[in-house]
């Protein structure tokens, strides 16, 4: 593949490109799903193609193709160069990339069992077993379970001498049950919602989830939610667990710290960020116990790789340190704007046919020192919420509202009654500022986000957020129309 890739590098160099790279991507995806006793999907997908990026005269051009011949690579490179020339018609200053050493390397996701080698019938047997457990109550009108596996093989070559081969592997699965009665419908899922849990690794990820062991509880909780009282509205102390805290991190810190957004380059679509660059190193993002760390070397992380799509080596760094805004997600183009001479390596593309853009890395809330029982034990009037159902945050990542699958009221230090449709609302720095306890390391889990959308044309990226359950004081709960 590198021989084919070298054609693009040769042409970009011949046209005196400031920078050029080609990423050849071969991707295999397998997804299986069972819904209400039927196979709802069994898809095996293989794609192969390449994306070529050139920086000519200080302006970018990008073109992609799936025609795997030297002639097509040459034509696609020339197309990217022509696009770069058009970009020069509306530019202010030349784009300059931060320097990075040239690497020749191979990196792959560690795994124990190749998920593509596990027979389809083994996977379907497990999904049908889960499905039958989920449907053992007539009130369950929609039962679903699924698995998906992705292996992406990359050959990345740059005009500044890097030649990197990587194989990234992820595995994921989930189950859910929707109970319906008297016009009411309630859903419960395991391990989490929105496509379930995905982590970097092989079939061992599926085995570790023990999905079948959780099916009966999921079914029973979905049915119980039908008759549970609605989450009361008011100001209460909130304990967030499950994947909800992962999404809270994702939406209110992850996206807010993408430097391209901060600089206004996403204004026309997803918006910008309140976490502007003059706040770096000064702004109180959260309470002093809040430490949020980006880490492209994190074992199991979906954004973990040897190198990003700017050919920058994987790193670990603080976004929030002791409650203070301390860093951003960067690429080689924008990191110089905040005085950095090297990118953090947080630039990735979706497949072969998209240009690399600044992305959230694995971003985790560091565990605290509070024993788990003490999180709830110290609350007089509060609520525990688990698993995300809905999310919404404004275009500067300040005003958010999240809905969760399930809640349990806390009275005088004890978890009590189940409530349905719990929601909470807040303003990002005030909310993180109200965090007064984070459970200890024993509760820390990694949660995968496999469907993060960004950019125009739209791209999907995957990353992980690790957290232990955490406590937030005096949060607005249960706002409804």
């Amino acid at each position, binding site marked *: 593949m590198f021989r084919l890739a070298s054609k693009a590098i040769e042409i970009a160099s011949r046209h005196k490109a400031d920078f050029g790279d080609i990423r050849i991507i071969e991707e295999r995806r397998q997804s299986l799903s069972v819904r209400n006793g039927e196979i709802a999907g069994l898809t095996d997908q293989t794609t192969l193609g390449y994306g070529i990026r050139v920086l000519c005269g200080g302006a970018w051009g990008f073109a992609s193709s799936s025609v795997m011949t030297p002639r097509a690579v040459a034509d696609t490179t020339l197309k990217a160069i022509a696009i770069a020339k058009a970009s020069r018609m509306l530019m202010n200053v030349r784009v300059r990339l931060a320097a990075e050493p040239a690497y020749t390397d191979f990196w792959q996701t560690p795994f124990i069992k190749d998920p593509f080698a596990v027979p*389809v019938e083994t996977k379907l047997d497990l999904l049908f077993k889960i499905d039958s457990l989920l449907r053992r109550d007539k009130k369950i009108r929609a039962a679903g379970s699924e698995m998906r596996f992705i292996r992406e093989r990359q050959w990345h070559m740059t005009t500044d001498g890097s030649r990197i081969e990587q194989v990234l592997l992820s595995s994921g699965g989930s189950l859910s049950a929707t109970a319906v009665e008297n016009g009411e419908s309630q859903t419960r899922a395991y391990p989490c919602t929105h496509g379930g849990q995905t982590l970097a690794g092989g079939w061992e990820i599926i085995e570790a989830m023990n999905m079948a062991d959780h099916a009966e509880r999921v079914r029973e909780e979905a049915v119980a939610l039908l008759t549970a009282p609605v989450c009361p509205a008011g100001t209460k102390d909130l304990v967030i667990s499950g994947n909800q805290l992962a999404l809270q991190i994702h939406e209110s810190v992850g996206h807010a710290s993408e430097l391209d957004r901060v600089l206004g380059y996403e204004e026309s679509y997803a918006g910008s960020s309140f976490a502007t660059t003059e706040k770096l190193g000064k702004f109180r993002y959260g309470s002093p116990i809040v430490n949020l760390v980006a880490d492209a070397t994190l074992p199991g992380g979906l954004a973990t790789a040897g190198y990003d799509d700017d050919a920058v080596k994987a790193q670990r760094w603080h976004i929030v340190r002791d409650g203070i805004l301390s860093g951003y997600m960067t690429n080689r183009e924008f990191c110089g704007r905040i005085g950095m001479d090297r990118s953090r390596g947080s630039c990735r593309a979706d497949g072969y046919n998209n240009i690399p853009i600044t992305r959230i890395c694995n971003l985790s809330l560091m565990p605290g020192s509070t024993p788990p029982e003490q999180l709830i034990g110290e609350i007089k009037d509060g609520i525990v919420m688990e698993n995300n159902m809905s999310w919404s945050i404004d275009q500067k990542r300040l005003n958010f509202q999240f809905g969760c699958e399930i809640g349990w009221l806390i009275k005088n230090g004890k978890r009590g009654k189940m409530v349905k449709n719990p929601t909470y609302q807040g303003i990002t720095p005030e909310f993180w500022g109200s965090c007064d306890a984070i459970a200890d390391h024993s509760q820390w889990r990694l949660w995968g986000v496999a469907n993060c959308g960004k950019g125009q044309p739209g791209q999907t990226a995957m990353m992980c957020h690790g957290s232990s359950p955490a406590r937030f004081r005096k949060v607005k709960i249960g706002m409804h129309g």
Partner: protein
Amino acid sequence: MKNIEDVCKKIFRLAGKVQCEVSAEMRDGALTRFADNVISQNVAYSSTEFSVRLLDAGRMVKINFNQSDDTALKHAVGSGLEILKKQKKDPALLPLAKPRPFEAARDLYFRETAELTPAYRAERAAELARACKKSSQTAYGTFENGSSELVIANNLGLFARHRETSAAYGVTVRDHDGFGWAEYPAFDAGEIPFRLLNETARAKAAASRSPREIKPGKYPVILEPQAAADLLCYLAVYGFGGQIYNEGRSFACGKLGKRVLSPLLTMEDNSLDGAAPGMPFDYEGQPRKRVTLIENGVLKAVVHDRKSAKAAKTASTGHALPQPSYLGPIPLNLAVKPGSGGLDDLIRGTERGILVTQFHYTNLLKPQTMEITGMTRNGTFMVENGKLAFPIKNMRFTQSMVEAFADVEGVSGQAAPILAWGIMSCPAMRLKNFNFSSSTKF
């Protein structure tokens, strides 16, 4: 693609005696993105993707691939057949669809749109950026063009083909702390009113400078077409799809023939000759039908694919998504019937209310009441005594759409094309009550 029929024939030959369906989609496109008055991204993409379903004795497998040389086809179909042998039987699996005639659709392919150059896109962006620079404003946006072709074929003799072009110009303008927005999607780029869109966004940004904070609460609300479409799309997708309806998860469940929304609302799905056209067949190759979903507020029908139609003991309306589909059929060519008058008339008839240009990050909280939350964006104004009184800071809403759209006070006479799940046509409208649940600082 010229040789697509040949590729289909090769795939059918490799499939042998099992039922085989090919869905082939070819896309060529380009997008110029600008921010801070300069081009920030400029890309082109080209892809051909094949999706093949193999069915045999109640078993089914789907394989997707993008290489179509003989070796790749042999490997892809061969591996699909291997998986098929090990597949479990699904008693509910429908055999492939037989060919059915479908109406000729509107010609939605415009060569000039497919062939727009990066220089042309850059020049359109530059026109706005130049104007913005002169008045200390900042331009952000995209200009996209492309073409696509879809073929659905099976070895029962079905062969359906549709091609179309697309273009969309969308701009956001910042004027200090004011923002304005405008967008226009079209099949023919020649229809895009660039100058009008630029002026609209720039004027709105200027008018929304120094916004004031107002108290959250219930207000009458005037929704410009994009804002109204954003919300109505949820009602259609999560309310009027046959599978969701059959399973009792739709807010409209059991209400066929009954009033579910305001009598001022009429909504159809019509890809053939409606205001939001598209392909004349669905992803099962079945003819799309015109479906009146809501007529004067009364639920008249929901859309079906073959599977949901069978469960409901009715016929497919030609609204299948790629099979198998977790979501089931959904309406993709929505058109809301215009009323009378213009946006100005809706404003004139408002004693006190809020005008919303666009919503941001809307999401469904409760499917039964279609309770949705989201933020206002890019131009939100207080209306007093029939006039725009002053710009207001953005607010979050949390509102049941079933309740909100049960009390529509007026629908404007001009519908605008909107980019939704497909292209949607929607006019502005005024709703009597809309709950803004919190405010923000910008």
